[in-house]
């Protein structure tokens, strides 16, 4: 799809200046580009499991190109071969046309072929019948085609079919200015009796006020006199009368039935598909729902195509308020920039002061340029309009509000995806989504649209956690504890993203407004409170989850991922906050059987140290910010964890303080010699490393763990680091002062 489109963009400009003669070469160049493109896309798609489909598509594309070239060249004389190849190529073109439509270039070529009379009438008819655009028809192609009509190479029936095609495709022609310039030509074609109804229809669509001229009115009236009251002529006349009532004195019947019959439209189904392609996914078929439990779904009946409104300029406020309009309004309205023309970012910048807003604010969701605008607009009413629309639509679309309405699940999910895309684009959550979460989370089953729903949670705008907790996080906790481990992990990931979004918002917000009316301390400390409450909440969730899932490694990874964010708040976001993990997380990770968990723990401890020392340094330098002095408790906690870790891993003197286990218990368990059993050699997560280290050193001998000491201890460390335990390396480097003499080393406490 995309290669063709891209080519169109790049070529469209060139082509307007070139005549049809140079077109052939142009197409060859275009073809090469196409081929290159498809190669590229193939390369890109290498890790795509659907690669084979790519091949098929490519082949189809090549076939199409071959078919196009064939038609372009014109008929070959040898008759028997001709029929076969012609049929083959026809089939290719028709297949593509009815399946996905033809690119503007394809339409251009085929129109040229059909009207130039290279082939016979039957072929021309068949070509015209399958000319279904993929998206649009370029105006140039139409103008070129009309020029063929003047040459007189095609038959009357082809002409008729062409006009019918033009009327059917009228809405899909990208511009109509040049076509309108040919108004006189079309008007002259009214003479032709066979063409007259179709030309009338075309003129009906094309006529502007300036096209209505006295001589044309006279002509139309004389035609009517000649042919009698024809509906198509009447249509055109009534339109003329509307534009210029003074020119037409004839009375036309006031109530009129149908002027032009649409039912004989050959391309009806194709057009329906085309319109849906251009306007997004088709609506689900309307289903009549009975029973009082089902609230009448409005949208399906009211807004036929999609949930999100179509972008329209809001000219209404000017038009509708005409009477009371001041001169200045007129002036400003003349200078306003219609949304439909807004195509690029520079355009937005140039016209940002006079942009017409959409009549339905919901339309911005599908338009990234307008999202930019929403992002910087100060007008509260704009945001309120969006808020109301989005709140109501979410509520109405939400599938678990309705009984037995799960068939719209896909549609709802894609709507949520659109919202999430917009939020990611803005890097900001919508308030409507927050209220939607409040209302819908208590009813959510934790399954339906899970990934979307959790993403919405991660984009909740920053505000007071304690206020949100009973509305949202208490409900989430209930689901969390009663769901599978995978759900737990995805909730933890969501909360990590939420934390990150809040931190980003706070770090930019605080630095953007250094001076404020309200004292900075109170607002900042309020914000910090909210963040720390979130972190404590996750700590509580995690501690319980670790017990529920009996120290599951997978879960521990997600928990530690969260703390990797937490430990770096001070340095990465420049916010005065250091919160350590609870013991319920620390000990299970320290005693984990998985080396990567231990490694991650070491890395986090290393980052905590960095942050705490940085905070301490800054405290000395900036006496002004003293109110953010971290409590000595934080330092004590950190030092305690540090001692425990060093005691276990390094000095083989674990749990010296705080934890006492009765010797008898240990004896019963058969681990009297427990002291060294948690050091770098014997730790269950690292034991396999020690064994393979020894085997590598001296493969022949019987391995003895206790032999790793002294120099060998250092080698062993280097071996561990080389095996990818970078976190451990950083931790040891920063926390343990290694003297040249192997032991005893000292621990680097942080003084408080």
């Amino acid at each position, binding site marked *: 799809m995309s290669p063709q489109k891209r080519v169109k963009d790049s070529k469209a400009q060139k082509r307007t200046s070139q005549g049809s003669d140079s077109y052939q070469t142009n197409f060859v160049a275009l073809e090469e580009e196409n081929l290159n493109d498809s190669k590229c896309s193939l390369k890109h798609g290498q890790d795509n499991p659907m690669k084979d489909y790519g091949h098929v598509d490519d082949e189809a594309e090549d076939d199409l190109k071959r078919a196009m070239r064939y038609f372009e060249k014109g008929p070959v004389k040898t008759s028997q071969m001709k029929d076969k190849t012609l049929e083959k190529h026809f089939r290719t073109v028709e297949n593509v046309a009815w399946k996905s439509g033809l690119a503007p270039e394809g339409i251009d070529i085929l129109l040229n072929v059909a009207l130039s009379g290279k082939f016979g009438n039957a072929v021309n008819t068949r070509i015209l019948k399958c000319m279904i655009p993929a998206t649009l028809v370029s105006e140039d192609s139409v103008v070129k085609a009309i020029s063929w009509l003047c040459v007189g190479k095609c038959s009357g029936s082809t002409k008729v079919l062409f006009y019918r095609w033009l009327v059917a495709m009228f809405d899909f022609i990208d511009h109509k200015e040049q076509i309108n310039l040919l108004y006189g030509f079309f008007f002259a074609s009214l003479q032709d009796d066979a063409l007259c109804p179709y030309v009338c229809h075309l003129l009906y669509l094309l006529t502007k006020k300036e096209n209505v001229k006295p001589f044309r009115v006279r002509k139309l009236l004389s035609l009517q006199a000649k042919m009698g009251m024809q509906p198509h002529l009447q249509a055109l006349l009534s339109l003329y009368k509307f534009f210029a009532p003074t020119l037409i004195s004839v009375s036309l019947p006031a109530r009129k039935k149908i*002027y032009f019959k649409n039912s004989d439209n050959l391309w009806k189904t194709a057009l329906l598909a085309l319109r849906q392609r251009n306007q997004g996914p088709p609506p689900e078929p309307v289903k009549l729902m009975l029973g009082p439990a089902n609230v009448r779904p409005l949208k399906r009946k009211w807004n036929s195509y999609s949930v999100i409104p179509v972008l329209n300029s809001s000219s209404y406020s000017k038009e509708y308020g005409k*009477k009371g309009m001041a001169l200045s309004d007129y002036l400003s309205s003349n200078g306003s920039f219609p949304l439909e023309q807004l195509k690029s970012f520079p355009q937005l910048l140039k016209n940002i002061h006079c942009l017409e807003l959409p*009549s339905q604010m919901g339309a911005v969701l599908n338009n990234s340029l307008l999202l930019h605008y929403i992002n910087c607009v100060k007008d*509260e009413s704009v945001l309120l309009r969006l808020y109301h629309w989005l709140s109501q639509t979410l509520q109405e679309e939400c599938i678990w509000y309705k009984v037995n309405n799960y068939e719209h699940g896909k549609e709802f999910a894609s709507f949520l995806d659109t919202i999430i895309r917009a939020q990611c684009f803005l890097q900001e959550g919508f308030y409507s989504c927050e209220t939607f979460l409040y*209302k819908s989370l208590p009813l959510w089953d934790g399954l339906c649209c899970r990934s979307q729903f959790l993403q919405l949670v991660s984009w909740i705008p920053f505000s007071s956690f304690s206020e949100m907790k009973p509305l949202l996080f208490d409900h989430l906790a209930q689901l969390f504890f009663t769901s599978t481990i995978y759900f737990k992990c995805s909730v933890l990931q969501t909360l990590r993203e939420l934390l990150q979004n809040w931190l980003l918002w706070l770090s930019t917000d605080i630095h953007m407004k250094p001076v404020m009316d309200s004292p900075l301390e109170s607002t900042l400390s309020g*914000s910090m409170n909210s963040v720390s409450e979130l972190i404590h909440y996750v700590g509580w969730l995690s501690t319980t989850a670790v017990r529920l899932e009996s120290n599951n490694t997978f879960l521990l990874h997600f928990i530690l991922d969260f703390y990797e964010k937490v430990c770096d708040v001070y340095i990465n976001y420049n916010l005065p906050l250091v919160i350590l993990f609870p013991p319920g997380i620390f000990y299970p990770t320290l005693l984990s059987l998985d080396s990567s968990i231990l490694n991650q723990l070491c890395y986090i401890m290393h980052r905590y140290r960095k942050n705490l020392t940085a905070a301490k340094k800054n405290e000395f330098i900036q006496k002004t910010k003293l109110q953010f002095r971290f409590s000595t408790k934080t330092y004590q906690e950190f030092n305690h964890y540090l001692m425990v870790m060093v005691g276990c891993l390094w000095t083989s003197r674990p749990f010296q303080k705080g934890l006492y286990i009765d010797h008898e218990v240990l004896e019963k368990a058969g681990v009297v010699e427990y002291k060294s059993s948690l050091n770098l050699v014997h730790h269950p997560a690292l034991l396999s490393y020690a064994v393979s280290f020894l085997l590598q050193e001296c493969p022949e001998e019987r391995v003895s763990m206790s032999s790793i000491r002294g120099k060998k201890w250092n080698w062993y460390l280097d071996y561990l680091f080389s095996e990818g335990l970078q976190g451990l390396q950083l931790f040891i480097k920063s926390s343990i002062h290694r003297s040249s003499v192997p032991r005893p080393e000292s621990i680097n406490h942080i003084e408080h």
Partner: protein
Amino acid sequence: MDSDDTAESTLRHRTSSRLQDCCIGATPLQKRIESVRKQVSFVPTPPRRKIPQCSQLQEDNDPQKVAFILHKQWTLYSLTPLYKFSYTNLKEYSRLLSAFIAAEKQKGLAVEVGEDVSVKVTFSTLLGMKGTQRDSEAFLVQILSKSQLPSENREQKVLWTGWFCCVFGDSLLETIPEDFTCVPLFLANGAETNTALVGTWFQKTFDCHFSPLAINAFNLSWMAAMWTACKMDQYMAATELLWSVPCSPQSLDISYAIHPEDAKALWDSVHKTPGEVTQEEVDLFMDCLYSHFHRHFKIHLSATRLVRVSTSVASVHTDGKIKILCHKYLIGVLAYLTELAIFQID
């Protein structure tokens, strides 16, 4: 409702001061969020309400228009605030909506341009249909068919009627800036296709959103109690409650009709605070009905679903259809419906 007001305002004060701790300045949007949080976190409806009373403002209203509203079945919708709606442009709106309807009805066909449309739309205000002076003026939209024969006494037939109102909508008005007009309650009578056309036009023109307003069993029992409590000069119909039992292939309906005076007597026996209805009283009233029914039929109505309440004041169905019967309590009924509509759009 005085005691209620003070309780609410202290509550609001408390929450807003809390909000300022972490947010800077209260924009209308933040006010909205605040009110939603308040709504979600506390009991969804206030535990006490006033018994409908005759309103002072109601005296101003046009008796013809009121008569037109009564005894018709209306389908209820909630409506978000209208952006840039102006009461001075009603004529212009009539013209535009007529053109829109004509265009939509002939969609896909060549549209006839000009004034020759077969339908005519009128907009008019409904004076006095509000609770306080701050409430937006109610207005009426009608689709009339134009007679095809240009005879002298051409009678215009009303094809469809809809009206917009706001009765005691203070809680919404407070949080909405001036660009918006709050008429959260919309009532329609006529073919649904017309409702859809008018609704679509409003949505496109004033960037608002219509949602069907269903009334759940909880609110239905409130209505049953409040309307039973209304003093009537004469009862026009029996008090009837309808329950639905979900069973296949066809659901079973249980109708429970009581003589209105008996119902009133029951209400008087459970009612304590004069002029007010409380949640306890509503629960007690319904429980009495349930136990009476159980004694006779051994069916626990509390296990089924209340779907319709009909009294002499009004008759309302859970799927959002209402017929207002009593002129005297019109404003009271609308006030409760406005409250429900506001709850839905928050």
